[in-house]
């Protein structure tokens, strides 16, 4: 099984090895090495890397549908954000009576807005298993309904991209409303603990980091499984000759829908892992720009190569972190230029460079993915 997944996926193997090394080293570097050791990893770095892992998971989700089925979603932030909000709701319920108003059940903003009791859609989120289920179900359900309508009437390409923008924009407007019952502008924050562990403690941070890493590796293997199965070949067939695929007896829409829902669930998980690490979720996650930026990670890393998405998420966000601390005003110039240059000169992204280099050195006739 593993051989099928990883065979002829050298780039993926390297990335997986690096990720594994990171997952093993970071806890040691943070928890065991003394703070003055040059190999020590600060808690800030742990959280930062944990964030990157979540972004990489989101990039993976986008790459799966864009790179392999040609569906460009400019609204994956919607699923990421929804996953995040679900986790945020669980964490908010965990605050209990430790809020500013000390209400045993209602979050602070609800007390402030004179709620009598919890709205129905907040019920059950005090249970971790329920929240976990919803992390996948809520984005999955939205993707199912939205995708079913879009694919059924054969909305594709640019049109699909634009209506996904509309989707994420509508969600942002909705979540900005205080009446929605999700904290409006401020979102959900001031979390205290997760499953009884202090959310600010170093150990919890490291654990969350490790879980994010494991999830990313698991998701990578699952994506790999999908694209190396006949399902993956059907996807390529759809991307290249949709009509022909239909006449070969495939219900193209259900393939697209299945993949879209799967991808949305991955994005939801990414959002759910992201929120406890950064400690806040607000409607900003639904901003249309954020979703487009996530697509850029994939474009930079290399559309149509799963490990490329991970490279892209890490490199762009790494650059962003560095720029915004050192030259904050240059960051947007750099990001914009990156967009332009990558689309003009690097249509296959960083992974494309690796592949070309790999072909040069090994003189293999063709890579694994066309």
């Amino acid at each position, binding site marked *: 099984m593993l051989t099928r997944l990883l065979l002829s996926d050298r780039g993926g193997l390297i990335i997986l090895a690096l990720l594994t090394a990171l997952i093993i080293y970071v806890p040691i570097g943070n928890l065991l090495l003394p703070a003055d050791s040059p190999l020590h990893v600060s808690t800030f770095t742990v959280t930062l890397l944990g964030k990157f892992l979540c972004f990489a998971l989101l990039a993976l989700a986008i790459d799966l549908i864009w790179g392999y089925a040609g569906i460009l979603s400019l609204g994956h932030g919607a699923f990421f954000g929804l996953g995040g909000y679900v986790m945020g709701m669980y964490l908010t319920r965990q605050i209990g009576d430790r809020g500013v108003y000390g209400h045993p059940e209602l979050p602070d903003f609800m007390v402030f807005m004179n709620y009598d009791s919890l709205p129905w859609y907040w019920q059950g989120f005090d249970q971790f298993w329920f929240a976990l289920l919803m992390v996948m179900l809520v984005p999955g359900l939205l993707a199912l309904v939205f995708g079913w309508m879009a694919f059924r009437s054969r909305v594709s390409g640019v049109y699909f991209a634009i209506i996904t923008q509309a989707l994420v924009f509508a969600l942002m407007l909705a979540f900005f409303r205080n009446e929605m019952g999700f904290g409006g502008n401020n979102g959900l924050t001031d979390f205290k603990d997760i499953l009884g562990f202090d959310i600010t403690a170093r150990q919890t941070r490291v654990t969350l980091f490790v879980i994010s890493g494991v999830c990313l590796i698991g998701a990578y293997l699952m994506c790999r499984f999908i694209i190396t199965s006949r399902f993956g070949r059907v996807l390529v067939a759809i991307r290249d000759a949709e009509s022909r*695929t239909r006449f070969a*007896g495939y*219900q193209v829409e259900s393939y697209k829908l299945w993949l879209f829902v799967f991808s949305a669930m991955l994005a939801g998980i990414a959002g759910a892992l992201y929120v406890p690490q950064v400690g806040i979720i607000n409607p900003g996650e639904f901003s249309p720009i954020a979703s487009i930026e996530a697509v850029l990670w994939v474009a930079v890393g290399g559309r149509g190569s799963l490990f490329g998405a991970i490279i892209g998420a890490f490199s762009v966000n790494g650059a962003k972190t560095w720029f915004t601390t050192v030259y904050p005003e240059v960051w947007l110039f750099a990001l914009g230029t990156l967009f332009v240059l990558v689309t003009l000169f690097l249509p296959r992204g960083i992974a494309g460079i690796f592949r070309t280099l790999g072909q040069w050195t090994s003189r293999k006739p063709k890579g694994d993915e066309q």
Partner: protein
Amino acid sequence: MSLLKDTRALMRRDQVFDFMLPPPDFEQPVDLSHGPILYLEDVSVSFDGFRALNRLNLAVDAGELRCIIGPNGAGKTTMMDAITGKTRADEGQIYFGQRIDLQKLSEYQIARGGIGRKFQKPTVFEALGVFENLELSLASDKSTWASLGFRLRPDQRDRMDEVLQLIGLGTQRDRQAGTLSHGQKQWLEIGMLLMQNPMVLLVDEPVAGMTAEETERTAELLTSLAGRHTVIVVEHDMAFVRSIARRVTVLHQGSVLAEGSMDRVSSDPRVIEVYLGEET
């Protein structure tokens, strides 16, 4: 207009929602008790006022090899589109056997039900290998979940090797389909059609871009398929049609102009006027 029609469809008393209809039962053999396997009655299709099909009537018997000829714009490709569900007819009925109303089915259902189609422009999955192209077309459970866990059975593998030999691509099985020559793509597409094992094959211009020798082999293949399968060929190459045809239908301006044996059709003065006249 389509809005009006949709509204009318909503008003129908005998059916409320399309998705509540029972799925077509392809497990049952197609009911051929009254002869034709494919039956078109008064089918009309228009694009913005242009009538591509105009009250077309056509009946094809099981096992027949039927050639369809006609000048450009006669509606040959539109007819195939209407049969395979790519285009919906504005009026008329299209039946597969006695019971299956093709108008209610979508493309993939029609394809799974046993009507295969080759496009005018050869269309293969260019990014995939020759073998993978055939594998995708293989008649099997094509639902999403089944695709995830799909593995070739030995008998399926044998069948694919057989087809590979038949279409002359036995040595090219790992080659990327996009790199094949035009004629080879035509063959590959026919091979994909065979893998589907359809009851009816709709073949749109199969020998365009083929050498004389390849054309001959195609003619042989199509004739050998007739009997076990029903084959409908649309072709401009009159020599090719003459070499395989038993029964020929001439389309003109969206309806049938003449029908019968090649000799009878080619001596029909109307056919000579609108179509064959160009050649002589």
